[in-house]
């Protein structure tokens, strides 16, 4: 029997003892109610002025020149703001009052390094490299410490490794679909023994098995998940060709096809985890390619393609979550924005404030929240970037408090230290 089959059908008690000595238990996650949260990191600095064009601002068109949108090609939200034409699902969500768009928003980071900017977005502090843990993990730890969670663990990172935002004291796991044949039980047990004296590897192996158990188990309707190996776990090894169990053609096909194909696997896995009563309640994944220095495009082009893929991915997430969508809030955030004016190469350079999104059935949406600073040269930050007027920690504190029920004292003390002056936004979530 191969491991995934074994986990799926519950297995014998003796072997299960060895395998399920996990730090994780996904069972009975009552601490956060039924709420689900997805945090999507848009790495590379999303151009908020293209994703959510302020087409009603009188200085906008001259700054953006041939990349400017107008009333004729945005998906309008109100007289001032529209959505990029690639964001059809988000527009539908806005109409269904399930989307809040935030604009002129930024983390406390005020320089222009991607890597430090992402660090601040994830660590929840004011400075880069201030902590080796992330705000989302510390929020989960606070929920567990509050004694309301009967489980110790609530989070999963969709990917091989855990991004900073999800690292920290609370036990979390990572999961990604495997293209390699599973280990047989005997080998797995021996490796588990081999790691007995190594806390890091023992913990990670147990976490991986716990995540696999969720991902590979049949759902409530008794259906097997689609990402279970199609061959039922039968090894498919080519003896001379280590690491090529998957035909290259199949690997490449993932990148092709519909706009959403880019996120198919990760969205599927996220839905698989979040749908389950006994699964993790928080999922994180990241997306790249937003660093549009040259030939950014407008209604068509580089950025349009990436936004279309993201939009299709979110639509697919809603479809796959089914009724659980109503308990779900998805936050999409990036490290900073881009210059207000286009640069000399039909793109935009690193900037400051940008746009962010909160979407989901649990969201009190249909609103744009922005204290708009304007794009006049006096309104710009350092004469070049959209001025930040909203701290993203306000949004995150609001979501964590209302949706995951993170106690406010924890939000101030451990989740977002040094954020005393940053008040949580209220009424973001339906009650």
């Amino acid at each position: 029997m191969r491991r995934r089959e074994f986990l799926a059908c519950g297995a014998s008690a003796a072997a299960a003892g060895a395998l399920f000595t996990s730090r994780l238990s996904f069972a009975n996650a009552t601490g956060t109610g039924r709420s689900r949260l997805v945090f999507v990191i848009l790495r590379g600095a999303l151009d908020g002025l293209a994703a959510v064009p302020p087409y009603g601002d009188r200085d906008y068109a001259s700054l953006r020149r041939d990349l400017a949108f107008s009333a004729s090609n945005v998906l309008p939200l109100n007289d001032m703001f529209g959505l990029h034409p690639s964001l059809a699902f988000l527009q539908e969500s806005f109409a269904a009052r399930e989307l809040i768009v935030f604009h002129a928003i930024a983390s406390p980071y005020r320089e222009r390094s991607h890597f430090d900017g992402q660090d601040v977005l994830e660590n929840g502090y004011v400075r880069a490299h201030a902590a080796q843990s992330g705000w989302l993990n510390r929020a989960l730890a606070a929920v567990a410490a509050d004694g309301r969670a009967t489980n110790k663990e609530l989070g999963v990172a969709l990917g091989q490794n855990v991004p900073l935002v999800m690292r920290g004291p609370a036990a979390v796991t990572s999961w990604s679909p495997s293209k390699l044949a599973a280990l047989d039980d005997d080998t797995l047990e021996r490796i588990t023994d081999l790691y007995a004296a190594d806390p890091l590897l023992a913990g990670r192996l147990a976490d991986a098995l716990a995540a696999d158990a969720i991902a590979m188990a049949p759902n409530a309707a008794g259906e097997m998940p689609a990402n279970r190996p199609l061959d039922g776990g039968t090894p498919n090894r080519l003896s001379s060709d280590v690491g090529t169990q998957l035909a290259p053609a199949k690997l490449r096909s993932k990148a092709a096809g519909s706009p959403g194909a880019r996120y198919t696997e990760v969205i599927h896995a996220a839905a698989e985890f979040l749908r389950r009563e006994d699964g993790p309640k928080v999922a994180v994944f990241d997306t790249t390619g937003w660093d549009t220095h040259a030939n950014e495009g407008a209604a068509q082009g580089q950025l349009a393609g990436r936004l279309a893929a993201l939009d299709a991915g979110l639509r697919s997430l809603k479809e796959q979550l089914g009724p659980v969508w109503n308990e779900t809030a998805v936050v999409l955030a990036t490290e900073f924005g881009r210059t207000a004016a286009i640069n000399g190469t039909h793109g935009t350079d690193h900037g400051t404030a940008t746009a962010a999104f909160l979407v989901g059935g649990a969201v009190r949406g249909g609103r744009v929240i922005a204290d708009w600073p304007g794009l006049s040269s006096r309104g710009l930050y350092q004469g070049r970037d959209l001025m930040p007027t909203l701290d993203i920690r306000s949004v995150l504190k609001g979501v964590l408090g209302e949706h995951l029920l993170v106690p406010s004292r924890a939000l101030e003390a451990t989740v977002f230290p040094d954020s005393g002056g940053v008040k949580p936004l209220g009424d973001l979530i339906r009650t």
Partner: protein
Amino acid sequence: MLEKPSSAIAANRFGLGAQPGELTAINGNGRDWLRAQLKGSPPGINDAQLRDSSDILAQALDLRREIRESRVSAAASGAALLKVPQLLRPIYVSEVTARFRQAVTTDRPFIERLTQFWANHFAVSVDKSLLLGLAGSLEREAIRPNVLGRFSDLLLAVERHPAMLIYLDNHLSVGPNSKAARNVERRHAERKIGINENLAREILELHTLGVGGGYTQADVTTFAEVITGWSIGGEQGRHPRGDPGKFMFRAELHEPGAKQVLGKRYADTGYDQGVAVLRDLASHPSTAHFIATKLARHFIADDPPGKAVDRIARAYLDSGGDLPTVYRALVDCPEAWADPLAKYKTPNDYIVSTFRGLEIPPDTGHASVAPFELLGQRTYGPGSPAGWPDRSADWDGASALMKRVEWADAVGQRVGNRRNAMELAPQLLGGTLSDGTRTAIARAASGAQAVTLLLAAPEFMRR
């Protein structure tokens, strides 16, 4: 006790993983073994298949132009656009194959690790389309020949290389008061052309001073103006053509005038203005500290001890950035020899050390590319100019570990009884081999499983 881990540290941390017999040859003299590798010129890669970047780039640009000019219908252009990746993908595969073979077979693994370190320091990423064909040539042409030279020469070679100019958009950057910009403005008032600050920013932030190294936004913008004109030869309207695919300074794109960067004035000497700024950046104390920190993080610990960083930075400054002097200072740090398993292997380390340890002939074609993709470190694909991260927490995820042991199991199946893990374990792990691992291997149910357990062992996961 001290002697044996020293051999394992030399081979596994500073090298690319012990080959059978390597620890015996080191014989406890890890420092000498490493120092000896620094002598002589750096080894090149001899592979007749590999082509010059200028050749690859000229062909790719020709192909792009043909596609542009021959575009008839939308459907036909879709198929035509695929021709560029179809040209570049086999080039990428042969570059990765050659690099992999070199890593697995070299008898100067310290030099190879240093080459890979610098390739990651000056990272480009194949998710930008032309880089699929150029990333390998950047390493071969700009990094390998300079890995035992001066940092300033390495820096200049990288920043001039077409792969870097294209990756960070500098070939498109135009001085707003340059001849070319003024011509365009005269003819098309509505068009805006100007600088792109991408390369300038990343040179300061990622290649030299480091973030917080003392530069401002004004320095970024001015430095971007300094390097306007650093471009590539090939068709360019009525301007000089130059050698297609090769570095070319295009005076007509260069922003005229003297410029001030980091408080120092640079007269307008055209191309040499950029060279002068790069030379000064290379000798800046912030650069010394930044590079020392990255080397210490790679070779000593995730959070490198300050003393070691200071020692390496001092060697850098005292020698004018002479890299072998810097490497010797690194090897001399007592901290590098204190904790034998301080670093968690990256997927690349793990795969290369497996092939070296088991003496498996490196794969070719797609098989040489696949394991790096499966284990989460696609060669030349870090996705950002910051390169791959270098801390345990970046690589030790649960899912990543599971993939590693699944792959180890596939390798075990592949070599089966043709390798004796019991004999190999002390040869690969030396003084770091634990009793627990020895016992587990001894009790394995098959030769294949014994190999899997050796590769899955905690001490083989680290270096």
